[in-house]
Every structure is written in C-alpha cells, then in structure tokens.
C-alpha cells in the first residue's frame, strides 16, 4: 500500500491534466480526438525545454523551479500550437471534428515519436538529475511517517493537478466566463444570439485546454518516467484513457480527481500484486474501458440530464447553417 499509492498518485496527475484539459475543450463543444496527439506533442515540448535547460547548465547549478518552468512553457507552447491548428481547421475551416482530431493524433504521435527518439539519442546526463529533483515537492516527506510516504511524496505536478481540476470546476460553475463557455458548447446558435462570441470562446477554450493537456504530457516525461526520454513511448495510451475519464467524470473536472486516482491504481495494481505481464495483469487494463462503456450506457439509458455530454458536442457552428 505504501508503495502503491505514491505510484498511483503520479499516474493520476497525468490523467487529471489530460482529462481536465479535455473537459475544457469539450465544454466548448469540441469532441477532440486529437488529445492523445496533443499530449504527445506536449511531452515533446517538455523534452525540448528540459534539454535546452539541462544541457546548458552544470549539474550542481540546476534549479528545481526553473527545471519545472522552462519545460512547462515549452510544453504549453507546443500543445497550444497543436490546439490552435485543431481549432483553425474545425472552427475557421469548419472541417469535421472527428476527422481533424484523428488526423491530429496520427500526426502528433508520429511527429513526437520521431523527435523524441532523436532527443533520446543525444540525451545529456543532467536531464535525469533534473528529473530526480522534480520527483518530490516536499523533500522531507519521510518524516511524516507512512502518511508522508503515501500522500506527501508526490511531485509539484501531483498537487498542482488537483488544485487545477478544482479551480476549473469552480470556473465553470461560478463565473460568467465558464457559463458562457458552457452555453457555447450546449447550443452555439443561442449563445451567438445572446451576444457571445462563439468563435473566440471556442478558440480560447481549445487552446487553453490543449495547454493543460500538454502539461499532462510534461508530467508523463518528467514525473512518471523520471525524465527518461527513451521511456517516453506510450503517451497516446494515456491520452485515450483521458478521453474516457472525461466521460466517467460526467464532464465535471473535479470528479476527474477520484476517477484518475482509481485508474492510476488500476494501472499500478498488476505490478504491485506481482502479476506482471501475465493474463490477469493484462486483463486489469480492460477495466477502465469497460467502466467507461457502462457509464456511457447507464447515462444514456436513464437519460439523466446531469450526466449528458454538452449538447453541441462534435458539431461545428456556421451562422449561415441556421
């Protein structure tokens, strides 16, 4: 238990960032299947930033704050650009969202894998050092006993992700901007008639959402994989799970916290139980997807208004079509 929970928390942060970012995007009415690609591009951005920083600084002068901020800026810029591309194609050029999303995933995964492999070949020995420093936000966590080992050993990203998910939730419920964005996602035509700039909201929501997804990619590289570039190869698997977490949490970002933690636990359970790559260990991986399917069915069967996706999800808005 003491070893399982910290590992689950690390995986949780990746899922929360991905799912929260995707929630922001989907609340604006975009079914973004490009999330796995965007997350991979974010991971690439983090790798570029970390390489630039760690390669130019002697090992003993690496500063934790800068080692987080520099790659984070890069991850956000890279993922934001991917989000901008998605938005340009879907909002301005009105292309089908599923198609653009899937092709962005194809492109993003190929593109990022390609460059990450190059960076992995010329990785500097300072980068794992930087990764190690990021691992724990509270270096003295062990003093708090088992509780500290379990819950205080996380990185900056672990706690930041929880905070962010709650903040985003509040933003949606309590602020005018959040309300407007929900209106844009539910019924863009009415929102437009009410004087909300649909195009601007969709652009901003998608770009900010993509940046958050990009931070998920960053967390994957620097925290989950301890800054090892060569191990960064299955970000897209996490991205796809994020799409299902959004459904499981019924488009509420604070619910992504427990859901992500549960999926993080499931992720780590086979290894912790010593099942390894055996049939049962592999089979546990099915559970998140089965759970998603069950939730999809239940929410549609009881047609609960609280669990429905945004009504305008997946539909582009063009004024002349009304």
């Amino acid at each position: 238990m003491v070893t399982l929970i910290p590992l689950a928390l690390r995986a949780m942060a990746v899922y929360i960032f991905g799912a929260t970012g995707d929630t922001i995007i989907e609340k604006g009415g975009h079914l973004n299947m490009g999330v796995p690609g965007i997350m991979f591009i974010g991971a690439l951005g983090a790798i570029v930033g970390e390489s630039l920083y760690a390669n130019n600084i002697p090992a003993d002068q690496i500063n934790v704050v800068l080692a987080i901020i520099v790659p984070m800026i890069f991850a956000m810029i890279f993922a934001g650009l991917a989000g901008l591309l998605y938005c340009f194609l879907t909002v301005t050029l009105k292309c089908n969202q599923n198609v653009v999303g899937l092709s962005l995933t194809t492109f993003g995964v190929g593109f990022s894998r390609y460059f990450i492999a190059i960076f992995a070949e010329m990785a500097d020995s300072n980068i794992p050092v930087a990764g190690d420093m990021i691992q724990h936000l509270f270096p003295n966590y062990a003093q708090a006993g088992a509780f500290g080992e379990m819950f205080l050993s996380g990185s900056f990203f672990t706690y930041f992700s929880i905070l962010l998910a709650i903040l985003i939730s509040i933003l949606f419920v309590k602020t005018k901007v959040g309300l407007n964005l929900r209106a844009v996602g539910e019924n863009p035509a009415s929102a437009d008639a009410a004087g909300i700039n649909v195009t601007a909201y969709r652009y901003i929501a998608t770009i900010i959402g993509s940046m958050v997804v990009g931070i998920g990619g960053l967390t994957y590289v620097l925290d989950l994989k301890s800054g090892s570039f060569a191990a960064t190869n299955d970000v897209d698997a996490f991205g796809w799970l994020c799409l299902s977490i959004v459904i499981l949490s019924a488009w509420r970002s604070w619910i992504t916290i427990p859901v992500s933690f549960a999926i993080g636990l499931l992720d780590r359970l086979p290894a912790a139980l010593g099942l390894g790559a055996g049939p049962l260990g592999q089979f546990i991986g099915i559970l998140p997807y089965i759970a998603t399917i069950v939730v999809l069915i239940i929410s549609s069967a009881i047609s609960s208004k609280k669990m429905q996706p945004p009504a305008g999800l997946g539909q582009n808005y063009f004024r002349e079509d009304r």
Partner: protein
Amino acid sequence: MKPAKINFPFRIAKRANITNTKAWIIRGISIVAALLVSGIVCTLFKPGSFLDFYKGLVVGCFGTTNYIFELLCCISIFLLLSIAVTPAFKMKFWNIGVEGQAMIGCILTAVILLLMPSAIPGPLVIIIALLASVTGGMIWAIIPTIFKIRFNTNETLFTLMMNYVATILAAVTIAIVSPGGSQTFPLITDPSRLLINIGTIKYIPFIIVTILFTVMMYFYLRKTKEGFELSVMGDSINTARYVGIKPHWIMFRTMLISGGLAGLCGFLIVCGKEATLSKTLVGGRGFTAVLIAWLGHFNPAEITIFASLVGILEQGATYTAGLIKISSKKYFSGVIIGLFILIVIVSEFFVNYQVRFKSKNKLISNNKPKEAK
C-alpha cells in the same frame, strides 16, 4: 469581457454547388501541395534530401516486383478497412471501432489457426477461422449498435472504447498462449493453414479479396435499394421514416456488414500476411482508414485513390527514411501521413466553402440593390 470586433478583409460563404471537375482540381492541388510539403519536411530532417524523398517513394514502392506486392498489400489493408466503415458512415453512424473489430478478427484467426488439432485439414481450419473472425467482427460492431438503437448511446465514444477492449484482449490472448512468458505469439508455420502466397507471388489472396469487396461495395452503394436506403438515412433520418424505411433495422443490418468486413480484414491480416498475433497488428490503421473513408466521401472509387496514396506514402516514406539514413526511421512515415491527411482535409474546406475577398467598393455597394444591366 467585450470581445473586440475584428473586420476581416474576406468573408466565407457556403458554395451552393460545385462541379466535379472543379472539386477534383482543388483536391489535386492539395495532394500535390501535400507531397511537396512532405519533401520539404524531409529536407528539414536531412538537408539536401528533397529529391531523394521522391526517388525513395518511387523505388520503395515500385523498385522490384516484391516491393510492388508489398505495396499492394499495404494498400489493401487501408482499403478494406475503409470499405468496412463506409456503409456505416454513409448513414452517419460514426464507427470509429473498425480497429477493434479487425483486432477481434485477428485474435480469433490466430488462435484457431494455431490451436486446431493437426488432424483437421488445412482448408477446413481456414474456413472455420474465416467464419469465426467475421462473426467476431460483427459482434464487436453490433454491441454498440444495439445500445445506440435502444438508448441512443453515443456510438463514437462507445466504438472508440471497444477498440481498447479488443487491443487488451489481444494482449491477454498473447499472455495466455505464449509459452513461458515470452510475450510473443508463436508463428503459425503450417503452410496449409495460411493463404499468404499463391505460387511465388506474395499476398495475392489478400489483394484479390480486397478488390472484390471494393467493387461489390461500389455497386452495393450505387445500384441497390439497400445502398439507396443508406444515403436517405444519412441525409435525413426523418425523410427515411416518412418513406417507410425502418432506421433501426437498417442500422443493425449495416453494422453487421461493417463489422463483418472489418473482421474479414483481421482474418486476412493474420492468415494472409503476418501468420502471428501481436498487439500492434492493426496498429492505428483503423483510424487512418476512417480518415481515408471520409476523404473519399464514402465513395469506394475515391477511397481507392486515397488509400493508394496513403499506402504509397506509408511504404515509400519508410523506405526513404532508410535510404537517406534518417535517425529513428520507424516513425518517419507517421509524420508524413499525418501531414498529408491534414493538408488534404484543408482542401475540403475550399471545396465546400468559398472565400470572397471584400474590396472597399463592394463593402459599400453590398447593401444597395444591384443595378439593372
């Protein structure tokens, strides 16, 4: 927050109609542009390799007879999967799950070919595997459909999740079957159970079956009552109801076809090409096939064109990467195909919409009635 009012110097209007020739000119330009950009990207990765890229495409795809059949097989996988999703998309049913449906076909075929007792004659085993994989694909497609019909469950997300269930089932199967935790499925060696070669020519059964079903799908969609019903349903489900089409039955029937074809493709991938099972056997090609079907407007003839282009890029780019010694060449074709599809998607905008530039005079005269000529 008051959004700033930006006055763009152009405006976008939907085209009322566009001639086929004009649409294909736009698409042709975008395809050429995509190929040029691919070459430029290749040059960026490896300076001075602009022409090598195209040389690699040609040599890697058409250099030897062997390459040509490799290429045809590569195209066949994309084409057959695209053909599988086409009828579903025609009625606006977003079957993203073709990847999983094909994977189920792969799993069943691999298990049956490997584990059937050797006393049973080869052709019989192949027929059993074929039936099992087609049925498996159908079941995988029909589960989301039933819930779509009954509860109107979102089929895009449902079929997407079914993909991962199938992929993990493949991993589970491999873990069960593989001896001693090697995590690799044993190679099926009995030649009487495989349909890879006829004589010395590789992959002929795969290619023939694909061509057959592409032609059949073309006539099914164009010339039969069933195909017409699909088009009506895709255009307007209410119109379909008024003329007496039963949408639920059509949906059920079409998804049986769609899933069955995907299962058939899975069968062919194992029995006609790879002779083994791995988690990445379909390897995202189901998603690419969805894109190809969309780019081809769900018309088998156009889909064949785009599937061929993607197949050529897939094989040619991989060959080029080896030719010009790009590092991490495994992923190069992914970059190129992603770029290609993104650029061609943009062309659809120019086919459907018109960009009119506003001149200053026009802005003023816009509101005035037109002068009589």
